[in-house]
């Protein structure tokens, strides 16, 4: 199992800070979008796309590539920032987010954006699609893995639990799910809108291997991802405890930053914070 040195961690943190800048910048230019959930998953995506997943931007349709489905599609600015940085498409695409004729839609579109594996946006649908991808990998006899990122608010959708049963029934141990547990949804705290607790117990009761991790701790994320891949006979749910808006102090844990773009002053303030090294 790969282990991160201090130098590795420093490098990843610097990468993630740069991608946070990209997220803030593209949302500022778009004038709308979802910063909170993008900032809460970016560290997960960085670990997956730079340290774990087998993907090749020069051969984006390679049948043997690992797949990632962003079920919480509204957090796509984070995915776009990563895909651009990995070279799936030119960085200038980011400037066109949410604008007419753009390859970068407000929610992910697999037909328009290289590297996007599944169109999502209507919540609750990604895990079913990921199950289908994992079943296909098994039919192909391929070792490729499927990753999926769900939101906590999203987990109020019934289809998530239908799919949870399907994954455990078919023993999809080639599937790793992340739950971005940032605690907030559009109308407020998840525990106040409609509580999911006990969340880990629910996934265990649905037949999953459940791991929990600090979703902003790179070494731990890498470690649990490895443990998930090693688990046989069960799909794995990694509950990632995250902070919505992570890295920009005035966005952190603020429900208002679920779906609002920064204005000029906020944009400058956010970038200054990130340039100063971000918050730990």
């Amino acid at each position: 199992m790969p282990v991160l040195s201090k130098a590795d961690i420093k490098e990843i943190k610097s990468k993630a800070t740069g991608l946070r800048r990209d997220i803030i910048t593209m949302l500022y230019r778009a004038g709308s979008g979802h910063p909170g959930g993008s900032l809460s998953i970016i560290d997960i995506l960085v670990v997956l796309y730079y340290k774990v997943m087998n993907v090749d931007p020069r051969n984006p349709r390679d049948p043997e590539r690992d797949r990632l489905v962003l079920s919480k599609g509204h957090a796509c600015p984070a995915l776009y920032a990563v895909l651009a940085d990995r070279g799936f498409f030119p960085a200038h695409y980011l400037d066109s987010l949410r604008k007419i004729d753009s390859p970068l839609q407000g929610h992910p579109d697999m037909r328009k954006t290289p590297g996007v594996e599944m169109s999502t946006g209507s919540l609750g649908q990604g895990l079913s699609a990921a199950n289908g991808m994992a079943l296909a990998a098994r039919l192909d006899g391929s070792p490729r893995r499927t990753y999926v990122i769900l939101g906590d608010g999203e987990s109020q959708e019934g289809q998530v639990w239908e799919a949870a049963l399907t994954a455990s029934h078919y023993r999809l141990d080639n599937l790793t799910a992340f739950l971005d547990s940032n605690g907030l949804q559009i109308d407020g705290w998840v525990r106040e809108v409609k509580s999911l607790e006990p969340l880990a117990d629910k996934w265990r009761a649905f037949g999953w291997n459940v791991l929990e991790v600090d979703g902003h701790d790179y070494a731990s994320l890498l470690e649990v991802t490895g443990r998930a891949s090693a688990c046989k006979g069960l799909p794995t749910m990694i509950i990632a405890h995250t902070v919505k808006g992570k890295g920009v102090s005035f966005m952190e844990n603020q429900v208002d930053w679920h779906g609002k773009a920064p204005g000029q002053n906020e944009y400058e303030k956010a970038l200054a914070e990130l340039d100063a090294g971000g918050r730990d």
Partner: protein
Amino acid sequence: MTEKVATRDAYGRALLELGRRQDKIVVLDADLSKSTKTALFAEEFPLRFFNVGVSEADMIGTAAGLATSGYIPFASSFGVFAAGRAYDQVRNSIAYTRLNVKIAATHSGITVGEDGASHQTLEDIALMRVLPNMIVIVPADGGQTYQVVETAAAYEGPVYIRLGRPKVPGVVPHDTPFILGRAQVLREGTDLAIVAAGYMVAPALEGAAELQKEGINAAVINMHTIKPLDVELLVHMARKTGAVVTAEEHSIIGGLGGAVAECLSEEYPVPVVKVGVKDTFGESGSPEKLLHKYGLTAGHLVEAGRTALQKKGQM
């Protein structure tokens, strides 16, 4: 006299034969495999069959995922669940993504019978045909269902196939090729054109024979593909006859009748009289009694034919 065959039975057998020839064919069901007849495929190809239990939304999403990886999924349930309950999944995970998923929906229309209104989809054609990228096919008999399954598998993209529960007579001559989007003239006529789909093709032929006795020469078109609609043939028949009757086991809103009226109002306006369920839910009963009560018999088509001719005279 050809043997009567339910289109769902033909589907089950066609799927099995297809599965024997193509290893990329996979089949999904939501706990109705004995009724949808996918159980035949499941028995021979257990590894390529996925029963997701009673969860149609999940079935559609899982099919989409399989399609992203080069498989050709046929996902089956009753029409009311496949098109209705899983509508958002069909829209976002299959139609919007243009994924190569075939939805084969059985137990469509009022001929579901005794199960009643909760199980009788009278709106699925409307729901499916409004979706961009979606092909909508309603085979008229068992033989045509075989051809449709083959055609759908060979076509790259989403297809909705509407199938029925009861046995239906053979209405399409055996040597007739099936071409997607190309309707079939089953009976030539000059006074009016009856445009029918699925279960209603047989009553349409009967109705035309009745009308002939009154000296009315009615053509019968099997409009097996509702989308894309065969505009060329439709306009040709409208021009030739000047009056159209549509016949479907579906609501008169948004289905075949709606599609035909939309087309002709722009291309060649003639009176269009729609035979179908008149904006109401069904109920329990035998298929025969229901067809009679809800106005879906050859007799109702004869009446509609007369009305259409009257309207033609007034225009």
